């Protein structure tokens, strides 16, 4: 197979100028910062720690410069009313309604998720599409990779219930993958291999994603009108948060997120970002060009690309198709992590994935814009250890200089011992950090009513800034550890994302973040005693560390979240005017809490309840007659053990093995009901009695 040749996709006249200005401005700002930093070292005695600081500084400064320039681009684009060369503003929009739609699959990959939440989101999207009158062009695929047998069986029952309620048999499908290879990207690739040919487009979602019907329809039309578009990524806004942490994130995603996306789109045009969900993809091109290559590392277990989206975008771009960000399209939503611990769990995964992208940075045939995306993603995590190194090296450099001067100079010279940034450098840093935020607020102010009013919006923004400032040093420490773990090859466990706003216990917070408090409480006085006034520059960092357990705990629960809602703080437009697609999504969260205490496993209902078993067998035997399924010896022993020792004796992994074998499931159904109680484990009597009032029947099948 020959390598694809990069085509000049949608390169309008302004493209080169835009990117040149973007790179030049970023480089210039970095250079100014570096010169100001160098200036502080002029005439000073230097130690090797100072050279470390000077070596790392441009890398760090370049990141805030890039962010600043993107925000300026976004602001400029907003002021002029949008990019006239953007794919979503093409001539096709004039006759939009006349563009016929093509077959599109909405792919919802799930992995041990809250099943009720997923199915309600699918139902809401279905109803929204129905209202557009274009539902016939869309099919839904719930592609499960769940490893927990309870989740698996629940997903199956939920699928039947969904199809029945929406009269969507033959339109909503459920597929459970037997071998969970390559995580989410493998899940989507598996869909493509099985059914990709049936569809021209697929909309890839996350388990917590929701998109409104009109936007889905418009995305398909945009793809139809632009055959060189490979991926169109919508801007998903975080919604439905009740915990303070999630509310702060969703507020900042609304106020600042759009600005950066717009700036990124203006600078990158057809080499935009793909975030792995809430995006439409041209299936044939994806199948042809975007299967992820293995990484060229010696350990076969580490060759899989963990974070697939950026690489897929780069491969799509390499094949000559455009990757666009549809930043203006409304009605694209996701949910953020509910607390700091869950965000860190997610970040650890992303960190490992982004660092792998290093390989693609120098790969041949990758477009410059894609390299830029990879670089930004890479530096997103590498900046943390670099920042930490700078802080430590800078502090030691100052200390050694102070000692050197004490021994060799007049006392009045000691004031010059510490390298404190010049006022110009501080001012420039503040401008680069805070101007994007101010621009975000300015662009949002006209819609202040949707954010609880102008005053509340400003107060929310100030609190958000304070929170971000205190969180930054905490994230720096954890991200540095994640980078270290990744480099050392410590395995990353792919945990399902927790999407419920359940509070963290203070004990948990103390256990996880207490070491930072100790570090802060011990480090602050020590630094002050050794560095004197220079240590005050480090105060926000120590403050963030000391307060970490308290902040993590305070921002995780619904109590403070409800108080913030009452005060009208961190309000987002979807809270003021909730679209129907978001209504009722988290309605049974309280019920879910109660469900957590349910003693009996759900999966045994696939063996006991005729209805649950029927659904399970129908799905597990898709396309098979089930006539020749002699179980292997190991399975025969396992099922006998289940009967004799009860479900608690069977690990989840073995339960999944049993459930995969249709004949075994049927055999167990017969045996568990026909065997006299003396031949069954005592727990089965209770489970049999529970079978008629199982949650699966109540919530899904008989509800």
């Amino acid at each position, binding site marked *: 197979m020959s*390598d694809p040749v990069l085509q000049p996709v949608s390169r309008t006249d302004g493209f080169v100028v835009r990117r040149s200005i973007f790179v030049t401005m970023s480089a210039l700002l970095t250079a100014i910062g570096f010169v100001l930093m160098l200036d502080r070292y002029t005439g000073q005695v230097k130690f090797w720690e100072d050279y470390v600081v000077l070596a790392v500084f441009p890398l760090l400064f370049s990141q805030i410069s890039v962010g600043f320039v993107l925000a300026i681009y976004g602001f400029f684009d907003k002021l002029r009313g949008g990019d006239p060369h953007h794919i979503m503003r093409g001539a096709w929009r004039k006759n939009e309604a006349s563009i016929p739609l093509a077959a599109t699959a909405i792919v919802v990959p799930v992995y041990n998720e809250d099943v009720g939440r997923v199915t309600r989101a699918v139902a809401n999207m279905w109803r929204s599409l129905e209202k557009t009158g274009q539902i016939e062009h869309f099919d839904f695929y719930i592609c499960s990779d769940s490893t927990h047998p309870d989740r698996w069986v629940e997903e199956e029952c939920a699928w039947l219930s969904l199809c029945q309620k929406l009269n969507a048999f033959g339109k909503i499908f459920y597929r459970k993958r037997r071998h969970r290879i390559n995580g989410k990207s493998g899940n989507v690739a598996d869909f493509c291999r099985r059914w990709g*040919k049936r569809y021209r487009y697929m909309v890839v979602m996350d388990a917590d994603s929701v998109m409104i019907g009109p936007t889905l329809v418009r995305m398909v039309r945009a793809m139809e009108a632009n055959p060189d578009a490979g991926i169109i990524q919508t801007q998903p806004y975080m919604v439905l948060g009740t915990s303070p942490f999630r509310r702060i994130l969703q507020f900042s995603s609304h106020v600042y997120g759009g600005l950066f996306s717009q700036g990124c789109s203006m600078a990158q045009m057809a080499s935009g970002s793909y975030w792995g969900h809430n995006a439409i993809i041209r299936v044939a091109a994806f*199948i042809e060009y975007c299967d992820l290559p293995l990484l060229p590392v010696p350990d076969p277990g580490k060759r899989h690309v963990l974070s697939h989206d950026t690489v897929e975008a780069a491969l799509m771009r390499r094949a000559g198709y455009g990757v666009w960000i549809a930043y203006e399209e409304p009605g694209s939503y996701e949910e953020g992590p509910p607390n700091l611990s869950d965000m860190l769990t997610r970040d650890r995964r992303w960190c490992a994935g982004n660092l792998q992208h290093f390989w693609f940075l120098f790969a041949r045939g990758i477009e410059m814009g894609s390299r830029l995306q990879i670089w930004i993603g890479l530096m997103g995590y590498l900046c943390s250890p670099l920042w930490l190194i700078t802080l430590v090296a800078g502090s030691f450099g100052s200390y050694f200089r102070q000692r050197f001067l004490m021994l060799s100079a007049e006392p009045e010279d000691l004031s010059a011992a510490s390298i404190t940034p010049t006022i110009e450098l501080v001012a420039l840093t503040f401008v680069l950090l805070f101007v994007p935020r101010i621009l975000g607020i300015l662009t949002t102010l006209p819609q202040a009513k949707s954010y609880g009013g102008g005053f509340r919006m400003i107060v929310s923004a100030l609190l958000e800034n304070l929170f971000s400032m205190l969180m930054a040093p905490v994230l720096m420490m954890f991200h540095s550890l994640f980078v270290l773990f990744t480099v050392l090859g410590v395995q990353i466990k792919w945990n399902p994302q927790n999407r419920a706003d359940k509070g963290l216990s203070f004990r948990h917070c103390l256990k996880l973040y207490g070491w930072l408090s100790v570090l802060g409480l011990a480090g602050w006085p020590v630094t002050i005693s050794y560095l004197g006034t220079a240590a005050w520059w480090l105060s926000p960092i120590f403050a963030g560390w000391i307060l970490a357990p308290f902040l993590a705990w305070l921002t995780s629960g619904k109590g403070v979240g409800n108080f913030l809602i009452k005060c009208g703080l961190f309000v987002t437009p979807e809270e003021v005017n909730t679209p129907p697609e978001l209504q009722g999504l988290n309605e049974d969260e309280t019920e879910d809490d109660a469900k957590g205490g349910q003693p009996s496993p759900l999966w045994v209902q696939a063996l006991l309840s005729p209805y649950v078993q029927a659904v399970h067998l129908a799905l597990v035997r898709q396309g098979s007659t089930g006539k020749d399924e002699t179980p292997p010896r190991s399975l025969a022993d396992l099922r006998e053990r289940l009967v004799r020792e009860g479900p608690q004796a069977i690990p989840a992994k073995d339960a999944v093995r049993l459930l995969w074998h249709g004949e075994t499931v*049927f055999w167990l159904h017969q045996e568990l009901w026909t065997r*006299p109680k003396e031949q069954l484990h005592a727990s089965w009597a209770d489970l049999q009695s529970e079978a008629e009032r199982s949650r699966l029947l109540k919530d899904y099948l008989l509800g």
Partner: protein
Amino acid sequence: MNTATDQSWNDAYDRLVVYLRTYDLADHAHVARVALDLLQQAKDAYAKDSSREPTALTLSLAQEKITEWLAFNLPQADLSRSNLLSAGCIAILLSGAYRTAPGAFLTSPVPEEMRQALRESLISTGPDLNVSSMTPRHLDYGPMLQFARQTWHRIDLKELIVAVAFWVAVFVIFHWWLSQAL
């Protein structure tokens, strides 16, 4: 010949009732009637052949009767027993027969409209496969791969010295440049 005790028949009856309740039939009296009828048939069978224990005999009989009843009412009699039960139970669920016509469960003949509803409630679970080949294209990882490969495959003393010398040189040049510049 074994003789079953009253207790063992009580156990069989209790298990049978629990089993039939899992079908969630709205007519509880009908469930009781069906249970008694099945129990009697099991006792009759036991009288002829007492090799099986009452619970096993009664519940096996119940499952057989349900399969036969479904086979009679569905157009897919050629399916395996497990698939027939699966299709039948889904049809009962989707047609709502457990609520609308609970009295028809295990009776023959069933009302024609119910039979029709059951037949119309058979479902297909997934679309036919339309298989594509999706394989990764060759990607040349460029100079970094060459560099890394050499490191992975063999690190000898000479290369180590060269690498250390290289980085020392870089640091010295950087140091010299900064000393001149500042």
